[in-house]
């Protein structure tokens, strides 16, 4: 998946930089809005059909939210702390770090709200998060426990990095990872614009 994403982005950059006229490049914003709309409806359908997630949420009750809550609070707090050192405003650093690895959606939202440069930072941050997750999940599972192994993935815990979590932990943790990914995926389109507008 990450190769499709990276390949599409690089192809777009090449086309935009080399072949497309300025008028066509401007039309890409409209295309991006429609593509994002389709993507969000499609991700919503996947979440909606996953009845196991809804059942397990009732079974584990409120405790099941400890993992997505921890990921959200930890990511955003870490981002705000780093932002202080880098000289970024707290609303900007919080918005960047609340992408939770969902690079397509968070980058597009921040590009629309904060401009091209912020969109680039958001995209690369979330891409790095996914890549680093693959490397760190086995280590985190070994030294910090099975539930903490879900944390690096963020929203990608329900799809792209799920195999890495399942391999390093067990079936129950893999299910918790799916639930965590679903909750965080749902939070990204809400948290990113809300935090940026604070």
């Amino acid at each position: 998946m990450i190769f499709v994403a990276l390949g599409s982005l690089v192809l777009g950059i090449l086309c935009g930089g080399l072949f497309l006229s300025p008028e066509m490049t401007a039309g890409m914003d409209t295309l991006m809005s429609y593509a994002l709309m389709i993507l969000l409806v499609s991700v919503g359908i996947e979440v909606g059909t996953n009845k196991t997630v809804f059942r397990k949420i009732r079974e584990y009750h409120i405790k099941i939210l400890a993992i997505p809550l921890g990921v959200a609070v930890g990511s955003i707090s870490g981002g705000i702390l780093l932002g202080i050192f880098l000289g970024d405003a707290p609303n900007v650093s919080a918005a960047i770090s609340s992408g939770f690895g969902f690079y397509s959606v968070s980058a597009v939202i921040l590009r629309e709200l904060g401009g091209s440069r912020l969109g680039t930072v958001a995209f690369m941050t979330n891409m790095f998060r996914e890549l680093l997750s693959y490397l760190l999940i086995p280590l985190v599972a070994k030294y910090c426990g099975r539930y903490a192994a879900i944390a690096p993935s963020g929203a990608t815990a329900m799809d792209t990095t799920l195999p890495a979590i399942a391999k390093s932990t067990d079936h129950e943790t893999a299910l918790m990872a799916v639930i965590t990914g679903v909750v965080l995926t749902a939070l990204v389109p809400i948290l990113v614009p809300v935090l940026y507008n604070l």
Partner: protein
Amino acid sequence: MFDFLGPFSLIVFFVIGIVIGAAVFPLKWLKANGWLQIVGIALTLFSMGASMAGSPTFFADLRSAGMKAFLYALVSIAGSVLAVFLLCRAVMKKGEDDK
């Protein structure tokens, strides 16, 4: 484009998807939905890339964004792991989070 409900505009499409998925979507079409997501991601990122490359400051932005993005990713992961580790120790039963 997405400003009809302020910061909540995007979530409307997501909620529409959840309602469709929970109420009427046939499970046998899930694979096709997966392909639709891949196409959606590819189109979103292609158009984003083309639009970004149209900006005169794009390559300078890219150079300066790389290290910053890496640091944001690393620190977000570290914060997440620490918070989940502490929260799970606090709320899960003893032994539930065995290594």
